[in-house]
């Protein structure tokens, strides 16, 4: 049995080096155990596999495969490293394997990559910054802080989006895995945080809730369509979500009242004015 130890949950380079080396030595997927360093280790958990520069025929893999691996490796499941290696192992004998979308291994990896992409997309959508002003000596530091709980290891992958968009702001995104900070010029990371480390209030949220309440059309209630795109697991970090149940409960009543209301006579002076002008 070979034990490979990776530096962290998102250690793609480590996985790639180890996988290359394992493959060159002909070590089958069933013979390999993958671990991440920061995890508590068991008695027999001493790594015995050290990747080496190997001579011999290099396997060329489709570019698609590397792209797929870079994404799928962010999936929160310890089995992913082994599964990706198994796919690589099979690719030697079945070079067209990736084209067979319904092969169970291919399907599993593609589904993992898809879940990661979706989580990354939802992070870009559902992170909510709260504005904070912190007194530091005689200076006030103004910035934005968000608390978010991604399902997969997507924080670093989201960095180009947040730095490209909120370039001239100072912000931090706190998550249980890792925290990301931007000071307007440099990106840095720190260890994971707790929800209580993030601010709870923001003056701007009241207007946002007013907007959310007003843009909702009570005559077109489609709760399952909403939940398909915005599952409940995200609600506790969305300031607008506290309105949802109230809006749903009153929707039918509001619709029925609109339908039942008798038409009113125009009261505004301009109506008469326009009518007169038209002759």
């Amino acid at each position, binding site marked *: 049995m070979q034990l490979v130890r990776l530096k962290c949950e998102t250690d793609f380079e480590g996985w790639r080096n180890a996988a290359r080396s394992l493959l060159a030595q002909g070590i089958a997927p069933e013979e390999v155990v993958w671990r991440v360093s920061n995890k508590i280790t068991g008695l027999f958990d001493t790594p015995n596999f050290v990747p080496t520069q190997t001579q011999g025929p290099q396997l060329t893999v489709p570019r698609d495969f590397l792209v797929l691996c870079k994404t799928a490796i962010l999936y929160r499941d310890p089995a992913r490293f082994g599964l990706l290696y198994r796919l690589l192992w099979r690719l030697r004998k079945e070079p067209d394997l990736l084209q067979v979308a*319904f092969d169970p291994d291919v399907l599993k990896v593609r589904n993992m990559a898809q879940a990661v992409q979706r989580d990354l997309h939802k992070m870009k959508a559902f992170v909510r910054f709260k504005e904070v002003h912190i007194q530091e000596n005689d200076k006030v530091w103004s910035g934005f802080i968000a608390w978010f709980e991604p399902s997969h290891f997507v924080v670093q992958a989201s960095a180009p989006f947040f730095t490209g968009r909120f*370039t001239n702001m100072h912000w931090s995104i706190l998550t249980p895995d890792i925290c990301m900070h931007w000071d307007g010029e440099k990106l840095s990371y720190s260890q994971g945080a707790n929800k209580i480390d993030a601010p709870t209030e923001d003056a*701007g949220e009241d*207007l946002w809730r*007013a907007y959310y309440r007003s843009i909702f059309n009570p005559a077109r209630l489609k709760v399952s369509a*909403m939940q398909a795109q915005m599952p409940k697991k995200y609600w506790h970090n*969305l300031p607008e979500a506290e309105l949802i149940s109230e809006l*749903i409960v009153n929707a039918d009543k509001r619709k029925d009242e*609109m*339908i039942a209301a008798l038409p009113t006579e125009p009261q505004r002076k301009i109506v008469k004015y326009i009518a007169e002008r038209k002759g």
Partner: protein
Amino acid sequence: MELKKKLEILADAAKYDASCASSGTEKRTSIGGNGIGSTTGMGICHSYAPDGRCISLLKILLTNFCVYDCVYCVNRVSSNVPRARFSVEEVVNLTLSFYRRNYIEGLFLSSGIIRNPDYTMEQVVEVARVLREVHDFRGYIHLKTIPDASPELMARAGLYADRLSINIELPTIASLHTLAPEKDGQAIRRSMGQLRLKIDESKDKTLTGKKPQRFAPGGQSTQMIVGADATDDRVILNTSANLYGAYRLRRVYYSAFSPIPDASKMLPLKAPPLVREHRLYQADWLMRFYGFDAVEIVTGQDGMLDLDVDPKTAWALQHREQFPVDLNRAPKAMLLRVPGLGVTSVERILTARNVRAVRYEDLTRLRVSMKKVLPFIVLPDHQPGRSLDANDLKQRLQQSIAPQQFSLFKAA
């Protein structure tokens, strides 16, 4: 009036516009700039309301004062709803404040017609100008264009906006004449034509090789109200096909006529035809991504789409002689016509069958509805047999489409 109250009135006034897309424009970031904002090309929905609609942009009216009297519209002059007007600065600040907190992708600004089209358009364009030039805002901007505004104002709108739209409002010019007497169907189409020319020009290099002026890189879209007049689905889809073809619209939005506060007595209210709206979107997709022609989609005698089954299934049921289709041999165009197979599934089948034959078990692993697909296809280990010709095939394919889930949350 306090800002919150204005926001409530002017968001309420804007919500009958279905579009909230923030996609299809160039990619930008704020790196090297003085402000904030970026566009990714694909658009992001930052929230969803319980009506199932995406909230991507701050969608508001600059003002809901309006001199027009379109019967279907909440903002018509003869309605007694409360009125409000934002200042340019208020809209700019709201947009930036929401954007900084990552609530939105940008702004979708429209307006009631005050004084005249040019005056109104100028105010709308001014908001976009301040966002872009004063604040270096690089997020998404969608401006509603006022038909018959001057070409100079249109050019400026296109310079700042990612997307422009003009609402066609109703599927026929006759309906528009009845329900929106001040609006001119010809003028709307003329404006769309001008937008198309400007958008096309901005993509070509000029004769001197100079880069042409920026003009709405996200293209133009429109909206049609469904169910306010008696127009049938066949005419609606023909109108859409014409709009896509003649003006190269990115999207035609269908908006089921919905109850509004203080409705006109000329247009009695009823529950919005949501299923019909859904079928129209499905039909629209068939035209744009599945190679269907507008004229072949509506199969019913009455010119209406079948509400019981989706339009592709309805078409297949009427053309059973073209089925079953051999998934391992049929051309792509025919695979796209198999009920239950989406564009992605078709692509996967096409790629995989180059390597090996597609079998029954393979299909179960793709995310397709087997119940829907099986009667219409042949696989090495599957024949539809008589199920394709069965009289009750439609009943068996029919999904329960009545929106039952609502009652779960209903007030006692």
